[in-house]
């Protein structure tokens, strides 16, 4: 294989930048969250690239922590989405009742 590590790092940087742009420019909160996941993926790709360069397993272990924490964040994120939706949902119900009157 002739692919140098720089290409992997470059790809990770592009992923990270796309995520960054998405976070600062998008208004939809779920899309923003997906962009954060992209950024975490970029970090993981970088960790694994350096792990191969250094020939150690450290990067692999770190990447696992990242995946675990990302999953935990997603769970909390969904819970918050539901919480917001509950309050919004009630609002929507109010709208419905005003319309009935």
């Amino acid at each position, binding site marked *: *294989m002739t*692919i140098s*590590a*720089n*290409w*992997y*790092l*470059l*790809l990770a*940087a*592009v*992923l990270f*930048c*796309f995520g*960054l*742009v*998405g976070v*600062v*420019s*998008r*208004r*939809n*909160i*779920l*899309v*923003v969250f*997906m*962009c954060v996941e*992209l950024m975490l*993926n970029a970090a*993981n790709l970088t960790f*694994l690239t350096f*792990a*191969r*360069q250094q020939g150690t*397993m450290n990067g*692999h*272990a770190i990447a*696992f*922590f990242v*995946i*675990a924490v*990302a*999953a*935990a*964040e*997603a*769970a*909390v*994120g*969904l*819970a*918050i*989405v*539901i*919480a*917001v*939706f509950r309050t*919004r949902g009630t609002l*929507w119900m109010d709208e419905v009742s005003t319309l009935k009157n």
Partner: protein
Amino acid sequence: MNRTFSKLALWAFLALLVALFLGYFITRVLPDYLPAGRAVPPRLGDLVFYACAAATVAGAAGVAFSRNIVWSCIGLLIALLGTAALYVFLSADFLAVAQLLVYIGGVLVLILFAVMLTNRIGEVNVSNQSLGLGGGLAVFAAVAPLLMLVAVLVPWPVRPPGPMAPTTARIGDEFLSTWLLPFEVASVVLLATLVGAVVMARKELKAD
């Protein structure tokens, strides 16, 4: 009709700008820094790498720029699949599988759930102060060249791929030796997540 067309034209123009920038940067600026003198014809593995990388970038662009949230989800799926494939190239087989199981099987499904549950939430602006497209492009123009340059400044030597040995056992060793502290503490993260998610998803508290 006219409005959609002008919107489309604007998007096409912006996409062209980004593509031109990336293309110029990768073909003109970066080769000065990349290790030179590779006149080897590309092998099959390299082509697969480029294909995966292109798919990942396309997916990421879809996440960040698509107007339709379902397309964003599909973009994320493609980007995650692409990175999982790249993990295999980096001889991280176990992580590739974990990426498939946890990210695509877990996180992405959660996000899809949230999308379907709250398909109106996108219209109701949940007060995320965004800088808008201009701000996004400004940030991109400021950060992307720096990070991409940093990625290629050190000419890392090309490593011959080692034998595809399973990494699972060695990762387990790492967890219980070098990374024992974060490994143990991660259990508190999961416990706090569990409690926090239940607390937030339940109904409003009333005096009992």
